C-alpha cells in the first residue's frame, strides 16, 4: 500500500511517499503564499521522483500550519502527532522530540509507539523559530546554510538578552556596530534560542533519548547550543525536516490497513 504525507509549513512544504515502511520519495519546496498549491506541487514532485502515477496513492494525510488548505487530502492531522510518529519511525528508541519549524517550536513526550503523551508549544511570538533565525541571518548578511556552521567558530558568544525577534535584531545591530565578531553574534543568537526552547520544553517530562526535528535541526549551531542547555545529546536524522510528512504518511498507512 502506498500512502503520502504532506506537511505544509510556514516556510517550506514537504511531501513523502511511503510503501510498506519504506520511503519511496521525499521533496522539500518553498510554501509561498498558496498552501494548497504548495501541497499539490510537492506531491506532484514526490510522485515524479518515485516514478508513480497519482492513482497509485491510497491515501493522503495533510499536516502542518497549512493542512486545512490541502483539500485533496483524505485527512488532516496536526504536526504534533505527525512529528511523534515520524520520529518514532526514524528511531524507535526516541521518547521525546523537540521540533523547531518556521514559526513554531514544540516539545513532545512520546510513548513506546510514538504516540504523543504530552506536548508544549511556543506562544504567539515567533522568537526562537526558523523565521527568527532567517531574520538574524539577513541582518548579519550570512547565508542561512552557513549560519549554523559559522557559530561553531565563536570564541566568546555575544550576550543576546532578548529573544523577541524585533528587539533581538536591534541588539544584533548594536553588536555589529560595536565591532563584535560575526561568529560570536551568531553563537549568541543560538544560545538565546536554545535558552528559550529549553525553558519551554522543560515544562513537560522530556525523557531521553530526544530527537530534534524540523527545518532548524539542519542548523548545527542550534543543535549544539540545545545539547549544552539540555545536558544530553540530541538525535538528529538526515531526514529531520521531513519528520512531519513521514508521520503523516504513516498515519494513513496504519489506518487503511
Amino acid at each position, binding site marked *: 500500500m502506498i500512502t503520502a504525507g504532506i506537511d505544509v509549513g510556514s516556510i517550506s512544504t514537504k511531501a513523502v511517499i511511503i510503501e510498506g515502511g519504506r520511503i519511496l520519495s521525499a521533496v522539500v519546496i518553498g510554501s509561498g503564499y498558496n498552501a494548497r498549491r504548495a501541497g499539490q506541487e510537492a506531491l506532484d514532485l514526490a510522485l515524479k521522483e518515485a516514478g508513480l502515477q497519482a492513482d497509485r496513492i491510497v491515501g493522503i494525510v495533510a499536516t502542518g500550519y497549512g493542512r486545512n488548505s490541502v483539500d485533496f487530502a483524505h*485527512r488532516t*492531522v*496536526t504536526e*504534533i502527532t505527525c512529528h511523534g510518529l515520524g520520529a518514532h519511525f526514524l528511531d524507535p528508541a526516541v521518547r521525546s522530540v523537540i521540533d523547531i519549524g518556521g514559526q513554531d517550536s514544540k516539545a513532545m513526550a512520546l510513548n513506546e509507539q510514538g504516540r504523543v503523551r*504530552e*506536548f508544549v*508549544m511556543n*506562544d504567539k511570538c515567533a522568537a526562537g523559530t526558523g523565521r527568527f533565525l532567517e531574520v538574524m541571518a539577513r541582518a548579519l548578511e550570512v547565508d542561512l546554510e552557513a549560519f549554523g556552521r559559522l557559530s561553531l567558530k565563536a570564541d566568546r558568544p555575544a550576550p543576546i538578552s532578548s529573544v523577541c525577534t524585533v528587539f533581538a535584531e536591534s541588539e544584533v545591530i548594536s553588536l555589529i556596530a560595536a565591532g563584535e565578531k560575526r561568529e560570536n553574534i551568531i553563537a549568541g543568537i543560538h544560545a538565546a534560542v536554545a535558552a528559550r526552547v529549553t525553558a519551554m520544553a522543560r515544562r513537560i517530562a522530556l525523557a531521553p533519548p530526544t530527537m530534534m526535528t524540523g527545518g532548524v535541526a539542519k542548523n548545527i549551531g542550534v543543535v549544539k547550543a540545545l545539547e549544552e542547555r539540555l545536558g544530553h545529546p540530541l538525535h538528529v536524522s538526515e531526514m529531520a525536516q521531513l519528520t512531519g510528512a513521514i508521520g503523516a504518511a504513516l498515519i494513513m498507512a496504519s489506518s487503511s490497513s
Partner: protein
Amino acid sequence: MTQPILLSDAEKERRKIKADDRMREIMAAYYMEAKLPPKERKKKIAWITSGGPVEPLHVMDVIPIYPENYGAMIGASKMGVPLCEKAEEMGYARDLCSYARADIAAAEVQGGPIGGLPEPDMLICCNNICGTVLKWYEVQARRFQVPLFILDTPITHTRFNDDMRRYVQRQVKEYIGFLEEVCGRPFDYDRMAEVGRLSIRGQELWQEILETTVHKPAPMTCFDAFFHLAMIVTLRGTQTAVDYYQMLLAELKERVARGIGMVPNEKYRLVWDNLPIWYRLRWLSNKFMERSACLVADTYTAGWTSWLPLTDRNNFLGFLGESYARIFLNSGTDLMAENIIRIVKKYDAQGVVFHSNRSCKPYSFGQYDIQRIIQQRLGIPTLMIEADMVDERSFSEGQIETRIDAFLETLK
C-alpha cells in the same frame, strides 16, 4: 483525527436552550432601567467589581452595574480592540487588564455596547478578584467625582484565620456606614436578611444548574454557563435571578431526562480554567463540539458558588466578609489546583483546558504549576491556550486550532 461533525438547523434548534430568550429579556430590562435618566430612574447607581458584595446595594435600592460584565459584552461584540487601543492612546499600558482598558476607554469616548454604561453615583471595589481593580476604580472615581468604597480582602494562601475574619468583617460594617451616608438613610437589616436568603437561593440554584452536567451526555457546556452566568453576577440577591434559574434548571433537568446532550456524540469530557475568550466563544464552542468534545465544567462560573459552604442563611451579614474574602480566585496556587482536581473528579473529565489569559494575572499566574500538579496527581492531559478575554490582538487562530486538535489527538 476524526473529521468535524456538522449539525443540521433542526438539530441545532433541538439542542438550543429555550431559556436563553428570557435571559436576554431580563438583561435588557436591567440595563434599560439603569440607563433611564436619573430623575425617572429614582435609584442610585453603583459600579461594583464582579466579586464585590452586591447584596447590601439591593437592600438600599441601588442598581449595581458591573464594568466587568460590560467588559464581557465589549469582548463578545468584538469592540475590544478599538477600545483597548483608545486606552493605550490615553497612556495605559497594553499589559493592563483588557476589562480595565476597555472600561476606561468606553467612559472616555462615552461609547461601546448599549452606548456606554450609566454614570455611577458611587463605586464599590473589592480586591478579592485582583489588585488591578484598586487603581482602575480610583481612576473612575476621579473621572466621575464620586465616592469610592474599597473592601480589602487578604489572600488565603493556605488557611483563613481569625485575624483575617475580623479584618474583613469590620470592613463590612464600614461598608454599611458608607452606604447609609451616600444614600442618606439607615440600613434596613430585615431587608438584608431577605436579600441574603435570595442570594443564597440563587447561588444554590446556580450550583444545581452547573451540576446538571455531571450527567452523560451533559445537557449544556461551559459555553452555555458563560452566558447564563450574567444573572448570578449582576442580579444576585433578587427574586428575578431565583425565578430565572428555577426555570433554567427545570429545562436542564428535562434535557437530562430526555437524554439531550449539547454536544452530539459526546466523547470527551473536559474542564475549562480561567475566563472565557469572549470574542471567540462561538468559534471555540464549535471547535470542541465538532470534535465530540464537551467542556462540562469550568472554574470560572463555579466561582459564584464557592462561598456557599461558608455562609449561613440565617446570618448572611455575619459571614459576608469571610465568604467574599475566601473566593477561589483569592486563594493560593495549591488551593486552586485542589479545586480543579475536585471538579475533574466530580464531572468525570478526561482533560483540562487552561486559558492563559494575558489580562487576568491572578487567574493565570500559577497555571503552569497547577498544570503540573494535575498531571502528577491525575495523570490526565492538559492544554494551555494563550489568549486574552477581550483583546483579540492576543489571539492567534492557527496556533490555537493546532493546539486544540493536537490535544484531542492525544486523548484518543
